[in-house]
């Protein structure tokens, strides 16, 4: 019974979050565009589905996956598990945290695959590119980007190096890749940086960052705990452009091979 009442409160909270968006949409539609909405019935049904879906989704995450995921992040970053001795003043060798990096990678990858906004963008990209961009191809390359980003971000917290060195280097790599990658993918690649970090990823990644920066000697959760999200939004840009470059290269090679075969 408590589950149902919880679900009801989550539904109310979702309605409250969606309300400003609905007011803007319908306000402009009625007052500025002054046109009747085609298929109004279908669109309203869609909104109801989205509201119900989000409420179930968030409530399920709150009840099951978040508590366990956060607990695991705490356990994996607990001093006993990491082998940090009482009174240690430095972080020790970065290699003693291998499980943490592996967890960061795995949790980054798997939460990104389940991220609803990424699913939405992948559906749209698939439609617009007339099937040339596969929904799974895009989602997996974004997920790999997030996974690498969060692992590297955990390494940064362990070593305590300044955040902006990594981000600025990342920017330079993105700019170089932008010059060489197929033009049609650029905007989508930039977008995939922003969509990765929302409902599912942020709470778990934040718990990991907080656990690491609290338990590792010499780190301050208020200063070092941030920044994982920034990594998770930067690396997918690179991996999506990389994916496009790779598919272009494979296609070119197949084509030139075919041409070679024809000459024989």
């Amino acid at each position, binding site marked *: 019974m408590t589950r149902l009442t919880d679900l009801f409160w989550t539904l109310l909270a979702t309605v409250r979050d969606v309300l400003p968006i609905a007011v803007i949409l319908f306000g402009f539609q009625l007052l500025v565009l002054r046109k009747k909405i085609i298929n109004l019935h279908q669109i309203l049904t869609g909104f109801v589905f989205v509201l119900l879906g989000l409420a179930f989704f968030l409530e399920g995450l709150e009840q*099951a996956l978040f508590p*366990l995921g956060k607990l695991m992040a705490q356990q994996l970053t607990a001093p006993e598990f990491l082998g940090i001795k009482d009174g240690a003043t430095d972080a020790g060798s970065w290699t003693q945290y291998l*499980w943490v990096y592996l967890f960061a990678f795995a949790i980054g990858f798997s939460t990104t695959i389940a991220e609803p*906004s990424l699913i939405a963008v992948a559906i749209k990209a698939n439609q617009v590119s007339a099937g040339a961009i596969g929904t799974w191809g895009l989602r997996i390359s974004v997920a790999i980007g997030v996974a690498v980003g969060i692992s590297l971000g955990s390494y940064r917290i362990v070593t305590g190096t300044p955040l902006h060195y990594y981000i600025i280097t990342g920017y330079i790599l993105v700019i170089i890749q932008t010059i060489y990658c197929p033009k049609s993918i650029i905007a989508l690649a930039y977008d995939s940086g922003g969509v990765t970090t929302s409902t599912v990823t942020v709470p778990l990644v934040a718990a990991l960052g907080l656990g690491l920066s609290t338990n590792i000697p010499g780190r301050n959760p208020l200063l070092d705990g941030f920044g994982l999200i920034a990594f998770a939004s930067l690396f997918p840009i690179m991996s999506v452009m990389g994916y496009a470059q790779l598919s272009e290269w494979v296609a070119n090679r197949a084509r030139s091979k075919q041409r070679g075969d024809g000459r024989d």
Partner: protein
Amino acid sequence: MIESIRDLAPIIAVIAFFQLLVLQQPIPDLGGLLVGTLFVVIGLTLFVHGLRLGLFPIGESMAHDFAHKGSLLWLLLFAFALGFGTTVAEPALIAVAAEAAQVAAVGGMIENSEASMTSYADGLRMTVALSVGIAITVGVLRIIKGWPVQYLIIGGYMGVVIMTAVAPKEIIGIAYDSGGVTTSTITVPLVTALGVGLASSIRGRNPMTDGFGLIAFASLTPMIFGMGYGMVIQ
């Protein structure tokens, strides 16, 4: 439904692997976990269905109508309202702003009292919402004019780098993170449909190269504005 199960399978596998093999601990409340997972699967299925029925069509039809109405001012105003309105109430942003206020209070940038922390957090939230509004407006203008997305983004990166050099170091991590939390699960499909819809309604624009990119702006400007806020308050 089957697709949603496939979407969630990796998380379940990761949790099971680390909990049982690495930490070697039993799963607490297995029944609750299963019910919760079932909720997530149902929720994801309904959400994706609702996207196709409601959010995508309305985003596209409004983009189409605005393009035909031909009033640039109203379109830009709509873009700003959508960016600002969806961000200012975003729960993830409220959480980040509250944490930022705590960092600022501990770091001695603001007075360590309830009132000054609330006003700091509200200020940061407004600044970020304003920056997202501006981002969507500029992004829509870019689609209309057909400017290449990379010049604007690279310009934005330079802005971030310059601000990083001059902003107080307590705000940097928070400002970087606020770029990631602004775009919510409902905003993303709407804004994407709006961009793609505009690019396909305007002659000479390609929905693939011109339609995407709005989200990218919305995650870039909060970093610049966030660091700017940190400097002004200091």
